[in-house]
């Protein structure tokens, strides 16, 4: 972590620093300026404060965020949210400087070093243990070990556990927001009597709101708003570091045994939180787009940041983005003394005084005001009393500076109006006291009265006592031993009474003061009432009805009998008015009767409803009583059962029950395991469904593909063989065809010969040979036909097989490239086979054609043969019969 290059110049608003701290700064050559001593203005890098709890105004005056000025508080801060948002990042109580850690923490803060491990962050600490958290809801044993270690070291374990638990919840919240990642690494160690726990985790784009929103001091239903606050308050020192380079958050917590620190958190350090700066920045056109933090220029994300709804009002009220509209409880001060035209909003419940306005406008620097009243802004209670609804340090400063206190006024009044009720000695004492102060009794203020009460009243009372004792001892002048004892007792009694008188006086004073106050208030009230009454009376006179006056005048005139035309007209008009009024009254009466009717009806309705409700109640009561009775019965049954069971347990059935219980537990465990198994299976199924397939799937697929490949190969081989067989058959068919052709040719030749013989010879020549040949041809033809049919059948079978083999190949589109290649190869081979088949089919078709031709030839030949036979028969019949002779 790099710190800004500019030299450290610190403005000290606390008055005098403790010697250890002053020595530290001087040893490091760090310039610390006290505005009371040196009024010089510098480019402050840090501002040290003490007992300030609202830093809004400090931010406005010193421009903390824009100028990258950090606030260091040397006392506890009540509102950590306000502190962090206003660039406050170190709270370190003076008491830390009594031990060795104070200087170290300041070194770490100002030099800006740190690291992931406890050794890097706090090198003096010895690591006692470490663990990692992958699941924030699974930390029990780790935490137990750590707490045990702390307990051994005498550190309060409860605070450690509280802090750690809340930190884990806070990190879980960040994780839910997507701003933190697991694992979380935890290391813990010790140094002398200090116990340290360090937590670090990955966190992307963390900004100031991510931790300031969780620092709310009010506990609400939204736990994420105060988780970090609880964690911080449980520690003695809390160090929150962010490493933007590597996007990691390191949180170190320290616990000491120091009694001064034991009861409340006395330290907080926040370093290098990127993105925090622009959030609280006031809108300014001239402002740079990016801001330099820790030596690095970071982009302005303010435009991207939206304030979540969970942000408390206090936070959102401090985040001002250039709007000039005044919100509730805020005052807009436009313009400035320098004439720059900027506007700033001051959050306050009350109206601003002139001084405040001047201050906000920039006409007066705050430290000038603070210098004048330094030392008075100490007690928070007074601030609350004066500040009204919202705590405002600077406002209280102005009020104190003006030193007009209502309480002091009252006290003065009380003293001034004491009158005769005080004893003479005190009166004279008071006058003497006033004389000593060169004041009149009326000019005495509250401080003077207090002084009088403390310094003078005891002396006056003493003197009075002594005087009275002297008076009593003088007459005898000789005092015996017995009398002296009595005297001592008397004296003691007088002293007691004097004390009681003193107390009485005090109470009288207080009572008088309260009486005076009441009287004053009652007088004021009386005066106000009188004034109001007089004002009201005046108004009444002014608002008197004119018609009444006229009526009176008319009545006088009627009495005097001096009526003229105008008077008559007036009488008429009055009568008309009377009529109208009567009509109005009647209308009103009618309306009132109607309203009464409606009211009565509604009353009746309400009564009915009430009755119905009563009935319901009675019924429900009855049902409840029944239910209760039933439940009581059940309870009695349960009790009897439990008694029986307990008896059974005591009598000896315990072993069997235990066995049953164990079996049931086992069954339960098994079932749970099964459920988990199924869940996992479902999850694995779900993952398998995703595009990125698992390896097992791929393997299975590869195996399936291989199987398919094998099947395809086998089928291919089979089909090849069948094709070969078919080809062989086709060849044999061809040869048969050839023989048939040859036979045909022979037959033709024979036919020609036969025809020639028929022509040349006469009938009854030849037919026996040709008949035989025909029979042979027919037989051959039949054989051929059956062969062709068989081959056709086989071809169709092959086609069907091929189509079947092709189907799965087409369906399986494996993801692997190798298998794809194989599939394509197979497809090619199948294509070749189909081509071969087509060729074979063509050949068969040709063979069919040839067989058809042959058939035709055969039929033709048969026809010819038939003809030949017929002719031969004719010839036989037509042959000349020899007389008495035999036919040839």
């Amino acid at each position: 972590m790099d710190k800004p290059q500019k030299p450290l110049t610190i403005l000290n608003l606390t008055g005098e620093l403790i010697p250890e701290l002053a020595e530290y700064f001087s040893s490091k050559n760090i310039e610390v300026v006290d505005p009371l001593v040196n009024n010089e203005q510098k480019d402050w890098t840090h501002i040290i404060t003490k007992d300030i709890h609202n830093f809004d105004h400090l931010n406005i005056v010193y421009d903390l965020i824009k100028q990258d000025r950090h606030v260091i508080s040397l006392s506890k801060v009540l509102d950590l949210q306000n502190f962090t948002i206003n660039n406050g990042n170190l709270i370190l109580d003076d008491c830390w400087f009594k031990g060795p850690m104070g200087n170290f923490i300041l070194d770490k803060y100002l030099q800006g070093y740190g690291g992931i491990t406890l050794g890097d962050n706090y090198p003096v600490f010895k690591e006692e243990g470490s663990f990692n958290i992958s699941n924030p809801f699974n930390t029990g044993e780790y935490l137990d070990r750590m707490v045990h270690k702390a307990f051994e070291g005498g550190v309060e374990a409860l605070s450690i556990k509280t802090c750690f638990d809340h930190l884990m919840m806070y990190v879980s919240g960040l994780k839910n927001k997507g701003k933190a990642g697991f694992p979380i690494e935890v290391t813990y160690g010790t140094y002398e009597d200090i116990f340290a726990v360090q937590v670090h985790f990955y966190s992307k784009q963390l900004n100031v709101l991510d931790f300031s929103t969780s620092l709310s001091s009010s506990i609400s239903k939204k736990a994420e708003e105060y988780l970090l606050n609880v964690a911080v308050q449980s520690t003695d020192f809390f160090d929150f570091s962010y490493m933007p380079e590597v996007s990691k958050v390191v949180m170190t917590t320290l616990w000491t045994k120091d009694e001064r620190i034991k009861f409340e958190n006395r330290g907080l350090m926040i370093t290098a939180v990127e993105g925090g700066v622009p959030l609280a920045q006031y809108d300014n056109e001239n402002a740079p787009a990016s801001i330099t933090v820790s030596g690095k220029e970071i982009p302005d994300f303010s435009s991207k940041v939206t304030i979540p709804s969970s942000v408390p009002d206090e936070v959102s009220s401090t985040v001002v983005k250039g709007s000039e509209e005044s919100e509730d409880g805020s005052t807009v001060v436009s313009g400035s003394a320098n004439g720059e035209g900027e506007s700033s909003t001051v959050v306050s419940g009350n109206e601003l005084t002139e001084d405040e306005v001047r201050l906000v406008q920039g006409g007066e620097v705050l430290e000038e005001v603070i210098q004048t009243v330094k030392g008075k802004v100490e007690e928070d209670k007074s601030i609350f009393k004066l500040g009204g609804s919202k705590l405002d340090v600077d406002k209280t400063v102005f009020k104190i500076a003006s030193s007009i206190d209502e309480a002091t006024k009252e006290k003065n009044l009380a003293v001034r109006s004491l009158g005769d009720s005080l004893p003479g000695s005190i009166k004279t004492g008071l006058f003497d006291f006033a004389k000593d102060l060169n004041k009149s009794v009326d000019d005495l203020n509250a401080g003077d009265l207090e002084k009088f009460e403390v310094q003078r009243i005891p002396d006056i009372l003493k003197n009075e006592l002594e005087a009275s004792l002297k008076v009593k001892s003088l007459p005898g002048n000789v005092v015996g031993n017995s009398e002296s004892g009595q005297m001592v007792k008397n004296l003691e009694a007088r002293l007691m009474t004097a004390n009681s008188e003193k107390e009485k006086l005090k109470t009288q004073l207080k009572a008088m003061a309260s009486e005076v106050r009441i009287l004053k208030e009652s007088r004021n009230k009386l005066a106000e009432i009188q004034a109001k009454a007089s004002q009201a009376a005046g108004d009444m006179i002014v608002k008197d009805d004119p018609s009444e006056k006229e009526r009176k005048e008319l009545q006088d005139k009627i009495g005097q009998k001096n009526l003229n035309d105008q008077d008559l007209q007036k009488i008429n008009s009055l009568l008309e008015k009377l009529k109208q009024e009567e009509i109005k009254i009647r209308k009103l009466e009618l309306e009132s009767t109607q309203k009464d009717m409606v009211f009565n009806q509604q009353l009746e309705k309400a009564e009915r409803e009430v009755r119905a409700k009563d009935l319901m109640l009675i019924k429900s009561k009855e049902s409840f009583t029944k239910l209760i009775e039933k439940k009581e019965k059940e309870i009695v049954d349960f009790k009897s059962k439990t008694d029986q069971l307990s008896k059974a347990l005591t009598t000896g059935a315990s072993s069997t029950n235990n066995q049953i219980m164990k079996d049931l537990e086992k069954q339960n465990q098994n079932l749970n395991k099964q459920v988990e198994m199924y869940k996992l299976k479902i999850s694995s199924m779900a993952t398998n469904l995703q595009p990125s397939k698992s390896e097992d799937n791929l393997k299975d697929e590869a195996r399936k593909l291989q199987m398919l490949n094998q099947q395809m190969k086998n089928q291919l081989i089979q089909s090849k063989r069948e094709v070969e067989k078919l080809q062989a058959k086709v060849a044999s068919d061809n040869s048969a065809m050839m023989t048939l052709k040859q036979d045909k040719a022979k037959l033709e030749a024979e036919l020609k010969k036969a025809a020639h013989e028929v022509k040349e010879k006469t009938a009854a020549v030849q037919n026996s040979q040709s008949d035989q040949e025909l029979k042979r041809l027919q037989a051959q033809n039949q054989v051929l036909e059956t062969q062709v049919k068989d081959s056709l059948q086989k071809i169709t079978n092959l086609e069907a097989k091929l189509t079947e083999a092709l189907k799965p190949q087409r369906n399986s589109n494996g993801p692997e490239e190798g298998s794809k290649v194989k599939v394509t190869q197979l497809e090619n081979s199948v294509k070749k086979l189909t081509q071969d088949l087509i060729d074979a089919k063509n050949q068969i078709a040709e063979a069919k054609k040839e067989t058809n031709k042959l058939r035709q030839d055969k039929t033709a030949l048969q026809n010819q043969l038939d003809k030949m036979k017929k002719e031969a028969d004719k010839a036989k019949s037509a042959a000349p019969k020899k007389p008495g002779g035999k036919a040839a």
Partner: protein
Amino acid sequence: MKTETQNFIKLQVKDLSKKIVCEGHLYLSSGGRKFYLMKPGVFVDPGFIKKYAITNHTFDFESVVNENVKEKFKTLFRELRYLRFEKDLREKSFEILGYFHRVFSDNEHFLSFALACHEEFCQVPFEEQLKMHETDMHLYRKALYAAAFSVTVALSNDYYDFLMLRDFYNLTFMLDIGLCQSSYSYFVAQACNEENKMPGSGKEFLLKEKASEFEMEVFLKHPAKSYEVLKSLSILAFTELAEVTLYQHELSDGTGFPRGVFKGQVSSWEAIVIFSDSLVEIIADYTFENDVLKYLLEFKNQKLQDLPVNRVYKKLCYTFDHFKALKETGS
């Protein structure tokens, strides 16, 4: 250690094709001569299988993996997976480490454990594995061993969660996936070797060898590239852990790349992966005692945190007396 008696078995191509990783030494006998084809832990290339499937060769195979050991580790990992409570998880992790220690004291080959881890933890897609193998055969082999080693280192550092262990495995496996680019060359491979031997020397090597601009880019930007690939795959349960890939070449003095992060900014979970990836040399017979411990001994801790390393010393090497003696004497 290579055994004296070599037990060869005949292995069909179809049997070899069922494996993703070669589980032993693979030879091809031809003409009375033996040719060494594959080392243990090498990716079984589908091209190789295709080539020999045509001729339907039978190989001589000598397995180095003890199936019993592998199965035992797988069972232990599965048991770890279904545990939910810290105590059970820690006890199981101790059991795994104890078994690991016992087995590898007997000179068992590291591949038995590496394969068990691969089968139980690996979520890296097959295509990415193939890509790694095709880029550089040794790249895949190194990833396989280093990823397995990351599991032991994580267990030694008290990371018991199964999903976390799986993420460590896959992260370590994919640390160098960014190198799998077209510009990857022999020089880049050598630069990686140099970087592993002597952290910080890879760039110098490339400059010395006058490597091209692309080669330099591949080398210097591969962590970022790996990060991108890992992000795009979304195989991690703890997605933020992907950032660990950016730390693989960071050095404790801040002179590493790509960001120049110092030792004090690196967490233990990052150091586990870096440490596991720093396995210098992978010889064929990779045994724990002779190789891993030797590596631990030679580990000069130039890369970031020493805490994970110390924990590994503490939990894994506690009975290796000779190793202890070596460490103490510094020889």
